[in-house]
Every structure is written in C-alpha cells, then in structure tokens.
C-alpha cells in the first residue's frame, strides 16, 4: 500500500494506483476528457493536470497517468493548477467552440469568452485526444482508424481517407468520444447491426450486456456471448474494468448441479402463437400489423416509444386501431383448437389504456365470442364498451390488405345487417394466443410426463395439478391457458401437493438466527451514526457524497459519520456493527437507496449490534435524488443534504418498539363441507394439521351431490363418496355437521370460533390458527321463462339429475332448447357464471349421445368454453347441436301454445325469427353465493356487490382475504367449475400452511396505539379502518389489537382527538422531518 496526501488529506491506496483514482477515493473530482477506465491512460487532453508539491518530480503533471508514490503530496486546487486547466480549456474551446461538453467545462471554471481569435473557418468537434483510436486498437483489436497528417491538418481517419473495410461497426469509438466527433458513417460502409431487444419485442435495441427485463430475478445483467466483442474476438473487456464490485466473470460456465428433491413443480409458462401461422394477416409483410405483445410494449412507458402510441411504419400516432381476436386460438386450421382464455380481456385492457393515453384513438375489437368469464371481468368489458367507446364487432376476419402508399390496413367484415363492409385502420393488433413452448414439450419428454395433442400437460379434472408422474406437479399455462388469478392460485395449489409429499421433513433444514440481547437505550441522548453510500457511481457519480458526509457531521445528535462505496456490502455490515459498539451509537441513519429493498438488511445489522431494529432511518438519496437529477449535480447534492437532514431529524425521535411473539394454534377451521371445503380439510390434514370442518347441512357434499358427470369425467358421485369417507375417517379431521357459526374472535394464529351444532344445538368453541372459507354457491332458481310454472322447464342441474335417474326418456325427446345466461350478465347480476356454457354443452352432448336423432338448440349470448373446454364446443357443433346467438335486448320469448312449449328467437345468422317447439326447455341458470351475510358480519369479511367474498387482491392474492389468516376457495369466491374449485382449495391449503408451519407469529411493531385518555369515542377510527380492527372496549375507549393492525395509519391520520399514533410514524417524527426540510441549517 502507498500513502499520499491530496489537498491536505491523507489517503492510502494500492500500489500502482494513479493520482486520479486516489483523488476519486477521497471524493475529489478532477475533470478529464481522454480518460477511459478500460484503457491505458495517455494524458492527451491535459485537463486532469495537478500540481505535485512534494515528491520526486515537482510541477504540473497529468493525474491520469501519474502513479502514486509513497509520501507524494498533490494539490488539485492550487492557483497554478486552475490557471493551467483554464488555459487547456480555453485552447480546446478555441478549436471546437460548438462542443457542449467544452462549453460546460468553460462555464464551470469561469471562462466567459476566449482571449484568442480563431482562424479555422470550418466546424470542428475533434479535440484529437485519440481515445477512439486507442479503443479501436487496444480494446477492439481492429485498428480501423488512426491519426493521419501532422500539425494543423492532423485528424482521425481510416487509412488513405477511404472507407474502412476492417471496421466491425461495434460503435465503441462513437461511444467513448468525449465530444461527439465520431460518426460511424464516415468511417465505414459496413452496416451496423444493432442488437434487437427481445423484451421490447425487437422494436428497440439493447447493448451486449443487459438486464433481460426490468423485473428479472435475480436482477443482474447478463452478457450476450453471441454479440459481445470479448467473446467474439477476445477483445474489449471494458465492463470488467468498470465494474466496481468486480462482478464480471468472463470464465463463468454453465454448471450442471444435482439436487435431491422430494417433489417437482413444473411452471414453464407459455409462448405466444407464431403470427406467421396466419399468413393472411400479413404480419412481417405489413409494418403496421403488430402482435398484441408488441402493442403491450408500445403502450409501456419504458417501452420502445416511451409510452407514446406510434405505428411502426412512420412513427405517427394512429387514430383507428383494430384488434383481431383469436389469432392462433380456436382455430383448427393451424392445430390450435383451444381458446387462449386471456386475449379478450387483454385486448379490452389494451384498448382502454390506448384510449387513456390518447383520447383520439378509436379502438375496434373484432371477436368471435367475448370471453369475460373472470371475476369482475364482464363489468370491465361493459365499461370498455359503454364508457370508453370501444367498438366490438362480432366477425371473424379473413384477411388484411395494406394500402401501399399510406401503409393503412383494410379489413372487410360483415356488419349487423349482414352486409360486407370495408374499413380502413391505421394500426392492427393481432391478439395472439398462448401455446406451450418447444422447450416445455422437451422438458415433459425428459421427465416422462404426458402431454395432450396441443402439448399442454395432461391432468384430470379431479386432480388438476397432478401430472401423469407421481411427485411431479404442474401449474400455470402449461396446464391449460389461463389468466393471472387462476395461475397464481394454481401455483399455490401445486405447492400444497408438492409440500404434502414431503411434509414430514418440514422445518428440518432451517437454521435459527440468534441475537444478543437488546441494549436498553432509555434515558440516553440520541447518538446517531450516519452512513452515506456512493452506491458505486449510482449516487457518487452525481451527488457529492463527501460533502454530504461533512454536512451530516454538523447536524445535531450526530456522533459518527462515514461514507461507503457500497453500504450494503458484507464488509460494511461488519464495519457498521463495530462502529455502533465503539461509538456507543443508539440510532443509525443510512443514506443510500430504497428502504423497499434494503431496510431489512440494515435493520438486521443494527439488531446484531444490540440495537432495536426500529432505531433506524433511511434517506433515499439514489432513487429519489441521484437517479432523477443526473444532470443537475449541484442541486442533487443539496437535495441529498436535505434528505439526510430530514432522516436525522426523524431518527432523533425514533424509539425502540417491541414485537410480540404469540404461539400459533396449529389447527384450521374450514367453513363449508362441499367439494372445496372437503378438499381443503383433507389437504391440511394430509399435511399433518388438525382440522375442524363445519357444514351447516346435515350431510357433507354440497353441490357435489347434484353433480354426476363433467365434460371430462363420469364418476363424480364415486369421487364424492370416497372424499366423504376419507374426510370422515381421517384421524385429524373433526367433522361438525348441522353446525352454525355464532361467534368469532381473535387474529391470525389465534382464532376462536363458537359453533352451535345439531341435533341438540349444543355450543362448542374451536380454537384455530387459520380459517378457510368455503361456503359455496348454488344454482339460482329462475323466475323467468315459465320456470316453476311448467314441468318441462328446468335448470341444467335438474336436467342432469333427471338424466342420471332415468326420469326422462331421452329416446322420446325430439327437440330440446337450452337458454344461456339465465340470471347472469343482467343489470341485477352483472357477472358471468362461468360454468353454464360448458354445463349446457355437457348436457347437450349427453342428450345427443342417448338420442342422436334429437335436435338440440342452445340459445346463447357468448359461448364461453375457455381454455381446453373449447374442444367440447367444437365437438358439440360437430354433433349437430345448433347454436343461436341472442342479444340482451332481444331475449328469447317463451310461451305455451296449445299446450306445447314455444320458444321464439331472432337468429342473426339467418336474419330471421326462429320458432321452436321443444319438449324440454333447459335454463342455464346463474350461480349465486349461498347465504353468507351473517358470517361476513361475524368475521368482518368484505364481499363483492354480488355477495361473493372479496379477496385481498384480485390477481396477486386470489385466495387470501384482507384479514390475515383467513383464506377463501370455491364458489364462495366466484362461480367456477369443479377442477378450478379443487385447485383453489389446494391453494388455500398452501397459503394456510405458510402460517401453520410457524410455531409463533410476530405481532406489533409498526402498529397503531390508542391513548385512552384522549379518546372521544367518536368512532372515526372504527369507521375508517379498512381492516375493521378498532373497536370500543369495555372501558369505553377505542382499542386496536396489535396482532390485527396492518399499520396503514388511516386511523391515526383521521382521529380528531389525536388519541391514535402509528408507532414509528408518530407525529413528532413526521413533524421533526418536516421542520428539518424547511429549516435549512447553514453549512
């Protein structure tokens, strides 16, 4: 190591370090133009001159090339240095007066105009630093350019002033040039080949070292060996020189690792169908025909056009945009017979977002059936149509024709009157479907699991996540195309099965962390340690970190300050711990990046040093400062000081908070003994947890009692019997039938539920750690279409029962009419019941099977046989079942004519009114939730307007309720078929296990606290709490249980008596922060 002094400050650096780098370590900035980390310094621009005042060679010298020696004394700020630097800039500016970078430098150093006259008339940008020449030669090993001529005609050029043939168009010269003087077009005629960014659907370019996508896990860059000059030509290697933490490893190779596992989950996802399969739409030929994923990127603010909606051909803003649905879905011509399930909704979403971006856009969606079968989706679709003016046209489009001049696209379609209309669009989006990727097919083959003819993983409807090979489970769109909520829920479901197999080993691989006791800091004055982070150049490159550090030193209560290159590094953690102990610190402030990712790390560090983890504050001087003010360094430094001052002010008031460990009752309560409830109870019991299953009927089974066959399975009743047997005989399951829940208290890990159970209605209380709600739904009893007035009118469920019990002689039934959406998708019940389309097809096929001569008509609004169910829709049409579409405004008319049933409906395909005389009229009736209002009130659970329970997050937490420890599955969540209910029940098991697997839950910390003395019992907190936690206790004041409080702070903000404080975000802390923001202390 070598010791030297720069501007009077001592610094120790490794041998061979240049003075420039040593100064950087001290945070002293020396301007440079020709310095490039990855190249041998040449000292060409002379801007980095410093004065050597003590050492072997005294005088002015270029710091970039001067290697530090022991005892060296350097000044970077002496008058001589400043004068020399001024002269350098003055002369450079004289040569290149129009270069912004030089103008900036001139302004910084205080030159307003050159003292000399310029004789060179032509424009000049090159300062002849030679960086480009060196990069091309030294790094890229190409040598396409060099200096030619001498004296005033010296310049950078390829040999003989001819275009270079050896140039590899890597563009490095352009990148390094400090003054923007290099233009690749002037060097070579070789054509650069920019690397297309796959994440941006190849609409934008990317470098060879890049993040695969912004949310990549782990979030680290990768090197594309196919394009990287280092791997191609053994050249460059610049990234290795730049990377501060030395993370670049060129010799990394793929490793083969062997893992011993007890179960496997396959989640390989999907690929988009290849748009070239539908050549008639002209993708690849017409620039303004884009795929839905490309349009998704076009819409994105981080996408290729920064969120401005442009069409690829001319970057103009499109007005008329069309979406064509079912491209590569529901199409046997390209062997994609299934429905991709998500395209109707994503097209609708894209149309809405496009419209929100530019209100001038007129979106049109060409569709076959709108499949808005998800929870809340129909309402979304209606909003798109009615509020956003998205035009939906039901027509399959056969081709697109481009107008050569405008590149606009012409689509011919059939309008409502049955006429062929041609319409011109500026942009057409192809709504591509999902398909299993080639690699997942290969994976399936390697693992020896079966796939269906499309390549989706084979499962059966009663075991929706089990593959054909025991121990291997599947989830997501490899099982079948599905939307996010079903995917997330199925992922949890597969985790339940995978962990069930290995549940005996639970907890055996855990290493417990041990902490020393916390130091009591009560009565101590705050002694704050402040650590300011450079974050490599992320912060240090913009904010003057040493200045921030010096400033922090001057603030009240600050006992220690330091700066770190990476405060999050392992050695810094060790250092922080030492510093806390040596300086007896009792509060710590880290000024670095975001608490979102790093607060837990620093909290753990200070806890290891014996401080309570809440004695910590963070100032985000990266995301909220250096990153957003890159071009305003001075102001950024000021802002960083403000942020640090605020954090220190708040830190002076933070107090230690205790979290309480409460033991978890390792028992679950499952409410509802239908398919979902029983499956959930069995799942938990098979994981080794006790379960109490409460069913309000006298027998288990629920809706399963009425289900005899599905499209895929015939043995539903056998399945139910075995399910009931297993539930009843499982040693860990307590079955309470004829039971009503009458009271409910507690919180996650510790619930108590009171149940009145028959026959004597005896009261008993169950203690449990988690609750699963599986209260189910039921078929709506219609009031329309003569139901209940004529025996020939029945629901699908009733028909199924009658068929199975042979109560109908199907051989004598010649004509059957089924009406879809009875009680669904109407203003009173605006949702889709999801399973009635397949139920109708299931029963229609059964009728056809028993009596092929019979005529079966299905009157529908949209057929919603999503995913792989579409095959059965195709099968039904092939079997001769006739589908007639009707509108909500033109519902079918049902009456009795001379004793016979008569159904009239307008057939839009024929353009005529059809009169049918069925012997059976079957109503595909809605699914409504079972009576659950009382339970919802008791347990304080939120419900949708329709009365289904409302999950914590529609997409990301589909089986969690807002109250922690309570989960949801089955029809109580929303209408769904049996396989999805079972998959959701497994998901609820999985989520419940995450809590039951722990012996204790930690509660408290950042939660609201009530000062009873100040409480006016005004009920404001009770009303505003989104989690229904506050209540008025026996003492007549508001009480908030720490275990239930989610720490959102709504009550603290609203309390008119100031009786509630949110711990760690108390008024005094926030006020101290605000005062600190506005009262700038002089430094």
């Amino acid at each position, binding site marked *: 190591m070598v010791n030297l002094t720069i501007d009077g400050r001592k610094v120790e650096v490794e041998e061979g370090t240049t003075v420039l780098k040593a100064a950087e370590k001290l945070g002293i900035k020396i301007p440079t133009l020709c310095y490039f980390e990855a190249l041998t310094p040449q000292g060409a621009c002379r801007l980095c001159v410093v004065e050597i005042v003590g050492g072997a060679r005294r005088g002015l010298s270029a710091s970039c090339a001067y290697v530090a020696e022991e005892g060296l004394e350097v000044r970077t700020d002496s008058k001589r240095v400043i004068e020399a630097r001024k002269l350098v800039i003055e002369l450079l500016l004289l040569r290149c007066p129009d270069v912004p970078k030089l103008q900036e430098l001139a302004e910084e150093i205080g030159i307003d105009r050159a003292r000399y006259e310029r004789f060179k008339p032509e424009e000049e940008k090159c300062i002849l630093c030679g960086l480009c020449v060196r990069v091309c030669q030294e790094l890229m090993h190409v040598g396409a350019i060099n200096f030619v001529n001498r004296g005033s005609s010296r310049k950078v050029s390829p040999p003989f002033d001819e275009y270079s043939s050896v140039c590899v168009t890597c563009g490095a010269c352009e990148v390094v040039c400090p003054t923007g003087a290099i233009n690749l077009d002037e060097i070579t005629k070789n054509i650069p080949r920019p690397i297309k960014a796959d994440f941006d659907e190849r609409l934008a370019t990317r470098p060879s070292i890049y993040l695969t996508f912004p949310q990549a896990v782990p979030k680290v860059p990768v090197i594309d060996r196919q394009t990287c000059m280092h791997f191609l030509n053994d050249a460059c290697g610049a990234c290795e020189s730049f990377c501060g933490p030395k993370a670049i490893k060129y010799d990394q190779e793929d490793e083969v690792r062997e893992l011993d596992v007890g179960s496997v989950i396959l989640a390989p996802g999907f690929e988009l169908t290849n748009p070239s399969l539908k050549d008639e739409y002209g993708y690849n030929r017409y620039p303004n025909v884009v795929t839905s994923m490309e349009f998704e990127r076009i819409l994105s603010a981080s996408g290729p056009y920064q969120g401005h909606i442009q069409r690829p051909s001319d970057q103009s803003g499109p007005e008329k945009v069309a979406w064509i649905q079912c491209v590569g879905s529901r199409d046997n011509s390209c062997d994609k017979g299934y429905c991709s399930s998500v395209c109707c909704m994503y097209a609708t979403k894209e149309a809405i977002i496009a419209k929100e971006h530019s209100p001038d856009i007129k979106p049109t969606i060409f569709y076959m059936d709108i499949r808005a079968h998800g929870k809340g989706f129909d309402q979304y679709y209606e909003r798109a149509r009615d509020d956003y003016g998205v035009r939906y046209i039901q027509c399959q489009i056969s081709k697109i024709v481009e107008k050569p001049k405008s590149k606009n696209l012409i689509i011919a379609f059939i309008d409502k009157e049955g006429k062929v209309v041609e319409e011109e669009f500026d942009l057409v989006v192809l709504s591509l479907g999902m398909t299993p990727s080639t690699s997942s097919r290969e994976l399936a083959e390697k693992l020896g699991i079966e796939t269906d003819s499309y390549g989706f993983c084979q499962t059966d409807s009663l075991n929706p996540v089990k593959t054909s090979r025991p121990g291997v489970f599947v989830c997501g769109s490899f099982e079948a195309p599905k939307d996010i909520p079903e995917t997330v829920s199925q992922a949890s479901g597969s985790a339940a099965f995978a962990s069930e197999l290995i549940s005996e080993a639970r907890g055996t691989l855990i290493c417990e962390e041990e902490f020393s006791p916390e130091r009591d800091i009560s009565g101590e004055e705050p002694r704050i340690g402040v650590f300011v982070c450079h974050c490599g150049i992320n912060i240090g490159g913009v904010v003057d970190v040493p200045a921030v550090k010096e400033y922090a030193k001057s603030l009240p209560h600050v006992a220690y300050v330091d700066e770190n290159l990476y405060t999050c590094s392992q050695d810094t953690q060790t250092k922080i711990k030492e510093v806390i102990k040596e300086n007896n610190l009792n509060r710590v402030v880290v000024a670095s990046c975001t608490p979102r990712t790093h607060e837990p790390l620093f909290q753990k560090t200070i806890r290891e040093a014996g401080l309570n983890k809440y004695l910590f504050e963070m100032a985000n001087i990266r995301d909220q400062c250096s990153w957003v003010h890159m071009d305003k360094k001075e102001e950024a430094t000021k802002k960083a000081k403000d942020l640090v001052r605020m954090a220190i002010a708040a830190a002076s008031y933070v107090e230690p908070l205790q979290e309480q460990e409460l033991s978890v009752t390792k028992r679950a309560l499952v409410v509802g003994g239908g398919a979902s409830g029983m499956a959930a109870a069995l799942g938990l019991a098979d994981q080794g947890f006790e379960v109490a299953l409460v069913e309000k009927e006298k027998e288990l089974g629920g809706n399963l009692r009425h289900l005899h066959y599905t499209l895929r399975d015939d043995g539903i009743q056998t399945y139910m019997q075995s399910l009931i047997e297993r539930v009843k005989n499982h040693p860990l399951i307590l079955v309470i039938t004829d039971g009503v829940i009458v009271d409910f208290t507690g919180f996650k890990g510790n619930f108590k539920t009171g149940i009145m159970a028959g026959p004597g209605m005896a009261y008993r209380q169950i203690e449990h750690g988690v609750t699963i709600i599986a209260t189910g739904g039921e078929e709506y009893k219609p009031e329309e279409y003569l139901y209940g007035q004529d025996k020939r009118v029945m629901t699908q469920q009733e028909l199924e029962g009658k068929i199975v019990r042979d109560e109908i002689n199907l051989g004598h039934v010649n004509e059957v009419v089924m009406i879809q959406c009875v009680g669904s998708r109407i203003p009173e019940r605006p949702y889709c019941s999801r399973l009635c389309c397949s139920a109708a097809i299931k029963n229609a096929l059964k009728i056809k099977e028993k009596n092929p001569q019979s005529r079966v008509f299905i009157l529908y609004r949209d057929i919603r046989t999503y995913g792989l169910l579409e095959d059965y829709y195709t099968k039904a049409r092939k079997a001769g079942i006739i589908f007639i579409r009707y509108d909500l405004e033109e519902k079918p008319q049902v009456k009795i004519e001379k004793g016979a049933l008569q159904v009239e409906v307008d057939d839009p395909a024929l353009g005529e009114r059809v009169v049918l005389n069925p012997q059976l009229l079957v109503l595909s009736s809605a699914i409504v939730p079972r009576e659950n209002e009382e339970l919802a009130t008791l347990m304080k659970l939120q419900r949708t307007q329709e009365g289904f329970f409302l999950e914590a997050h529609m997409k990301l937490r589909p089986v969690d309720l807002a109250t922690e420890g309570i989960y949801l599955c089955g029809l109580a969540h929303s209408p769904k078929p049996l396989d999805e209910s079972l998959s959701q029940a497994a998901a609820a098991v999985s989520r419940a296990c995450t809590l039951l697997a722990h012996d204790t839950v930690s509660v408290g910390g950042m939660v609201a606290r009530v000062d009873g003395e100040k409480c006016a019992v005004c009920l404001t907190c009770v009303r505003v709490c989104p989690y229904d936690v506050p209540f008025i206790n026996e003492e007549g004041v508001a009480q908030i249980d720490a275990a239930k409080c989610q720490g959102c702070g709504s009550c603290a903000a609203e309390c008119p*008596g100031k009786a509630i404080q949110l711990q760690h975000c108390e008024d005094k802390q926030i006020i101290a922060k605000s005062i600190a923001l506005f009262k700038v202390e002089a430094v």
Partner: protein
Amino acid sequence: MVIGEGKPIKDILFMIENYSKIILAGCRGCVTVCSAGGEKEVGILASALRLARQNEGKEIEIKEVSLERQCDPEYLEEIRSFVDEYEAILSIACGAGVQFLAETYKKTPIYPGINTNFIGVTQEQGVWTERCQSCGNCKLHLTGGICPITRCAKSLLNGPCGGSSDGKCEVNPETDCGWQMIYDRLKELGKLDQMEVIIPINDWTTSRDGGPRKIVREDLKL
C-alpha cells in the same frame, strides 16, 4: 351532540390581528366528535395561523391546549396557571364553551374559532344533520319520532303545508318534507290516525321566547 364547523381562516386572523401571544383551546367533547374543535383541529388551525402570520411578517406564539370539556367549570381550571401569560384565548369549542371561558377568565379576551350550528347526529362519516332545536317541549311521541319543529322548514305542528311536493320541501328542493316523513313513518307504524289529531298552538315560552333557560335540580344541588 352539538355540531359546529370551523370559521373561515380570514375571519379568525382578523379577530386576533392585534395579538402576538394567544391560547388556542380545543374541547374533547362534542366538537372533537364532529371534527370541528378536537386536538387535531387545534393542531391544524394553529399551524395555519402561524403560517399566515409568518407570511405577514407578524409572528405569533400559540399555546395549543385541548380541554376535557369547556362546559364544565373544573375543566376550565386546566389553563388557569398560565392564562395570564397570554393576550387572548381563541376557543374552538361550541358557543357554550366559548362563553363559559369568557365568564371564567374575565380579564382575557375570548374569540370563537368555530360556528356552532345545531344539535344533530353523524349521518355518516363526514356528514352531520340537524335533529333538535331544543324547544323544551318535546312532541316526538305525536309525530312518529320525527321532530316537526326541526325537520319542517316552517316548524309547522300540523302539516304538511301546500309547499310539499314529491316528498320535498318548497323552501329547499334538496330538503325532505318533514311532514311527508312523519306521514310515511306513521303509515309504517300503522298509526295514520295520529295525523288527524290537531296539535294545539305551541307554548314557545319553554323555547327561546322565554329568554335564556335554566334548569335547577334541587335533588342534585350541593
């Protein structure tokens, strides 16, 4: 409870224009519940006044207090020890509280920071409506539990009048007709015959017409 709402800040600034050191007194009773004069409002009003005065270049010192109830003499004692150090008191309790403070601290000028509006209920979070005019002669047993004095814009004892249309009042089409409500409620109770009973001319001496009122309970007096 008594419902009030804050006075415009301009009016308050004008009242305390000449003072540089005041007490801002809230009340933990009714006005806390209706978010007009609790500790939170004290804090907000004090900051607003400080900012406004700072802006004018006339800084003001404000002592923020919240008394348990400004309508009970014992609680008014909470500020006795320091009241003389201040030039004025700005109270954001109801009119009763403001007056009671004025009676207690005779030498210190008292100013009201809120308007006292009515005796009413919390219709929902953030919405309060009037229910009682404290006429001193309750007739709710005759009118299905709906007060004709308060809910009828004209305080008619035998209504409705000709200005009732579609259940709304001619005085303000947003207001429900009190007598329509009484009719509906009586109908629901099966007591429509009550509508035929003529309520005699009111004795207003128990109300404001008899001057300020007083209740003496000999059994409770010490």
